[in-house]
């Protein structure tokens, strides 16, 4: 048997005998030759996003931007949305949107009241209004322990004094109330299903007293957000301005560090990434919240990283390979940096993926934006940014010397020496 182990190029033997892993050893892919595929790919996604945005009449803004009321409710059982809707209807809340949240079995419902319903008067206490509507087993003259605040419990205990405390009653009862609500919120996930849950947590006399003044509903409110109309408009403007300032900042920095066309190429690329990311939110009907804007701004900065790596290499190669065609230099630069482009993006993607999978519901939109954005950003720094440089160069030489397009020796503007050379050539 003459079986042999051979390396396939993925595993390199170093002189000392260590094996080290390496992806993309000396890749030689003609990226520029595939530009029509890339353009088609980008167009499909951008246009799909834009169409979706037009159909939905703009982005699906999150509560912070559009105003309104969100009440997050958690049930002890799987709630029927139709039943909830009719309960809300009964108290005059007609246009609420109901939505189940989280994994199946987490029994969470989001009640979403649009801005029109969130009038100034309703702003005073929509939470209580919704809680009242959802409470089906209301007991007269009793409070709901699942939706009672620490203050309410503490006040009740102080008024009823089940432990007959002579001194320090206020402090003691407030501590007891705190421990009861803490137990409810931290150990029981925000809900008691029966007063027996309290055995061992509080003194039996306290539990008995609570039973006299409280009942248990089958749900608890774990988060409410109420945003007035003014704030929303103000924030929308700010978000758009921040995004534009960010793009402008990139343009200026890259124009200073490289040449203006590099800045323009990078900003077009990042704009493309932003458009596709926002489009993905529209296509999947996910709201764009404040943290999503934060993610998009971060992406504007981060997407540029891969682009800069490629640009840096193009600039370096331009000095080394004066005689080559620009498209060859760009192609080689992309190939030379391919492994680090994929690795850096891949590692960041790994952490973002962890955030998306395990980071919980609150960060869902944020991490979704990053997941999409990093994928698109990496693709575009290879497929969009560098080719723009070549396209610009082709366009320029086409314009100045028709008929000589594609001839060797075309120069892309480069900082310092390049510019002087051009000047010399002209002179």
């Amino acid at each position: 048997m003459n079986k042999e182990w051979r390396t396939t190029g993925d595993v390199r033997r170093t002189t000392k005998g260590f094996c080290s892993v390496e992806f993309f050893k000396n890749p030689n892919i003609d990226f520029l030759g595939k530009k029509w595929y890339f353009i088609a790919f980008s167009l499909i996604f951008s246009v799909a996003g834009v169409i979706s945005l037009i159909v939905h009449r703009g982005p699906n803004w999150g509560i912070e931007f559009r105003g309104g009321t969100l009440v997050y409710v958690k049930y002890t059982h799987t709630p029927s949305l139709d039943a909830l809707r009719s309960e809300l209807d009964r108290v005059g809340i007609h246009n609420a949107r109901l939505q189940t949240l989280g994994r199946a079995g987490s029994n969470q419902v989001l009640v979403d009241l649009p801005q029109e319903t969130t009038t100034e008067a309703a702003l005073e206490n929509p939470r209580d209004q919704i809680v009242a509507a959802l409470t089906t087993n209301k007991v007269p003259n009793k409070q709901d322990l699942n939706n009672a605040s620490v203050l309410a419990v503490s006040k009740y205990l102080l008024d009823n004094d089940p432990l007959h405390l002579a001194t320090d009653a206020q402090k003691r009862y407030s501590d007891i109330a705190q421990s009861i609500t803490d137990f409810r919120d931290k150990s029981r996930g925000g809900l008691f299903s029966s007063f027996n849950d309290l055995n061992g947590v509080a003194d039996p006399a306290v539990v008995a007293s609570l039973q006299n003044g409280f009942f248990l509903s089958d749900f608890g409110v774990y988060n409410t957000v109420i945003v007035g109309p003014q704030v929303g408009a103000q924030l929308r403007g700010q978000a758009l301005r921040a995004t534009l300032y960010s793009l402008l900042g990139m343009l200026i920095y890259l124009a200073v560090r490289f040449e203006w066309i590099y800045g323009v190429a990078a900003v077009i690329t990042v704009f493309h990434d932003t458009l596709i990311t926002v489009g993905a939110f529209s296509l999947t009907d996910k709201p764009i919240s404040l943290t999503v804007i934060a993610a998009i701004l971060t992406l504007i900065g981060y997407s540029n990283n891969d682009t800069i790596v490629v640009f840096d290499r193009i600039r370096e190669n331009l000095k080394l390979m004066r005689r080559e065609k620009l498209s060859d230099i760009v192609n080689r630069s992309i190939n030379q940096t391919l492994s680090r482009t994929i690795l850096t993006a891949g590692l960041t993607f790994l952490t973002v993926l962890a955030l998306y999978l395990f980071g919980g519901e609150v960060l869902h939109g944020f991490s979704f934006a990053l997941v999409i954005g990093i994928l698109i950003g990496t693709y575009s720094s290879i497929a969009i940014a560098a080719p723009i440089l070549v396209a610009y160069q082709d366009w320029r030489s086409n314009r100045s010397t028709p008929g000589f397009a594609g001839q060797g020796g075309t120069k892309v503007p480069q900082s310092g020496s390049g510019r002087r050379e051009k000047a010399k050539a002209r002179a």
Partner: protein
Amino acid sequence: MNKDLGWKVILIVAVILLFAYGIFGIPSGVSGGALADGLLSGGMFRNGIHLGLDLKGGTNLILQVQVNDAINVDSDNAVEILKDGLRKAKVNYAEITKPDPANHPEQIVLKGVPPDGSSALRDLIQNKLPEYDSASGANDTWTVTMKPTAVSDTKNQAVTQAIETIRNRIDQLGVTEPVIEEHGLGQYQILVQLPGVDDPARVKELIQSTAMLEIKQSLGGPYSSQDAALQEHNGVLPNDAMLMQGHTGSANDEWYLVSRVSAVRGKDLRDASTGTDENGQPEVNFVLTNEGGQRFYNFTSQHIGDSLAVVLDNKVQEVANIKEPIRDQGRISGGRMTQQQAKDLAMILRSGALPAGIKYLDEEVVGPSLGADSIRAGVRAAVYGMVAVLIFMLIYYRAAGVNADLALILNLVILLGFLGFTGATLTLPGIAGVILTVGMGVDSNVLIFERIREELRNGKTPPSAVEQGFGHAWVTIVDTHVTTIVSAAILFLFGTGPVKGFAVTLTFGLLANLFTAVFVSRVIFDWVLSRKRIGEALSI
């Protein structure tokens, strides 16, 4: 070179110790189990790093102060002064109005002022209303307008005072670490954050309740503490007296002994304004209702020479002597009042409540169960993401992977230590910022290592490959960091609470990364190379 390396190692160890102190404080026997436990519950941060509202649970309110209310109060007062002054100067005008109190509360228009009355009017404004400008128009119409500086002062004053008043009331809730501060840039908004409070209705009720204003007899004080006050009276307070704390704005703790019964209450007051006494010192003039004036007269005529305390929400604001019996018009004057204090006091007397109306713009209540879930999820994602990156680096780069992992861990230590030192608030997006710092920070190592590999492939010796690798990658790393930090900075300027936390975390994480991924990593490489024989390969 070895000597150089020694100094660098000492610097690195010093940085580690410094920032580890920022996270943990002085170590007090932390066991491994407790640490892991603390990490998961977020308890580890309790000393240095504060948890944001989204992690701790609590109420977040944004209020709009209707600052025009405060301007209206001032200009209404000015209208009265003008009416009064013109009557005394016997100037007959046709009409005095405020044409647009909703949008231009600072404007007063006088119509039909006879030409011979204009000098009297100008004098009146110069002497009695120094904060107003006047301009004459067609048809004997005069426009009296509050000066722009005075307008903005009054508006800012209204916000400051609203914050102060709200803070006093929130104190009654006994909330730990409440945040009550101006929000936004010049929008006259107030941010109220109350960790652990999940009953916004109660908070709103408290904020909007009118303040309790009383004028009581001051029987002694100020004392530096309650004990000092007791000592002064041989341990027993008079039956009809009580101790009351001074205004919270005062530098030291102050206690006053005041009568239990109030001479006048807030509802007895009709108006108050500032003025100057015969010595040119600021004073506060106030007007009582008829009934309140009668009571006040009975009281003051019996207590000439005694002191009166102005008490707002059970806090003594000001103490002054009774010079003469006062009926329904009185004044509070005294050498120690500044113009600003007089203005504040007048405002307090006048409004008794908040200086201006309040509108709720935004309300968020994060239940404590959600906060706990968020911490668990956030920490879990951070740990998984970080472990994945660490393992990948080890497999892909072998010994150099150890180098990168050490640099990465140090990066985290510096970041968390920084958060501890600055007392920064860790929010859920902030945790995301930590995770992203890991993912983006390791990019620097990758850029350097790939370059070193490339140089090695081109036949360079390990020391020169390391030299070249760091040299070439450095420029790229600076560029990539700058772009990310620029967008984080814009995010910081634009964002609110949690998002700001994210921007701060990311920015500082990436700055620390320049130190760890470039400097520290280089030192480790140099150390490794210094222990190798010439020509021996580098594990990368």
